């Protein structure tokens, strides 16, 4: 069975760094960036090498519609 590839993209300017997405991600895909966005929040970013399963949990809980998940 071929494994589907997934990719998570953060709309960084809309992220408020609440951390709820990272809390529900079982794969440790999301981490806090060291940079601020123009709203003044440390936004989230995908961690290097972590594998997104496309489970959509993070998108369900994001209050700011700041997460896009793509799959092949």
């Amino acid at each position: 069975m071929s494994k589907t590839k997934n990719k998570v993209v953060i709309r960084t300017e809309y992220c408020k760094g609440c951390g709820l997405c990272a809390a529900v991600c079982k794969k440790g895909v999301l981490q806090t960036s060291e940079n601020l966005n123009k709203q003044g929040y440390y936004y989230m970013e995908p961690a290097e090498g972590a594998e997104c399963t496309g489970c959509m949990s993070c998108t369900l809980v994001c209050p700011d519609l700041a997460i896009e998940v793509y799959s092949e």
Partner: protein
Amino acid sequence: MKLKNPWPIYFKKDVETHYCPGCGHGIVHRLISEAVEELDVGKRTICVNPAGCAVIAYNYLNVDCIESAHGRGTAVATGLKRARPDLFVISYQGDGDLAAIGTAETIHSANRGECFTAVLINNAVYGMTGGQMAPTTLLSQKTTTTPTGRTSGNDGYPLHITDVVATFKGVAYAERVAVNGPAAVQRAKKALKNAFQAQIDGLGYSIIEVLSPCPVNWKMSPIEAWKWIDDVLSKEFPLGVLADRRPKAV
């Protein structure tokens, strides 16, 4: 690669909301926009916005909106629905709005079985004005107006407004949900769709109460706020269907 979560058409794109990080209002706005899209009523939806943190929900919801005076959302919704029964009407309200200053409008519109849907955001405080006690504030909960905690002797008990209106025969559907996790969010959306469908089917009043985090006024992190809903708030306000007078499928 294909986008798995396309933008909900009834949510305005490329606007930053003014809500605090981890606030439940944003999640509920998204669920409403998804539900009206899936039920194909978005074009005839009008949302009554409250006084409260959601006062400018019209900047985010991509449906027609109207502003109501504090607490009077269900009176405005009554007028809209009676004048234009073809509209799909939502009254979006906070707990201070719906269950304190607007109690009379809430009770009587529900008792008359007005055919619209109320969405009640229960965050156990007055959010917008700085975290004062709301009717839903828990006993011993500290707020800016109960600095040593709410006491029954001075302030009475937490008001279960949805349980009250659920006893009315005019209420077709009433449910209490939460938005503190992926599964809870999915249940909340299902509840909203049940309530909206009851309105579409002309069955009468429907109300969905949402236990919604207000991390800033609860003085908690967003994660702590989620946990507080599970461990404390939902113990006083248990989740579940409170009334279901929809005709049973045969």
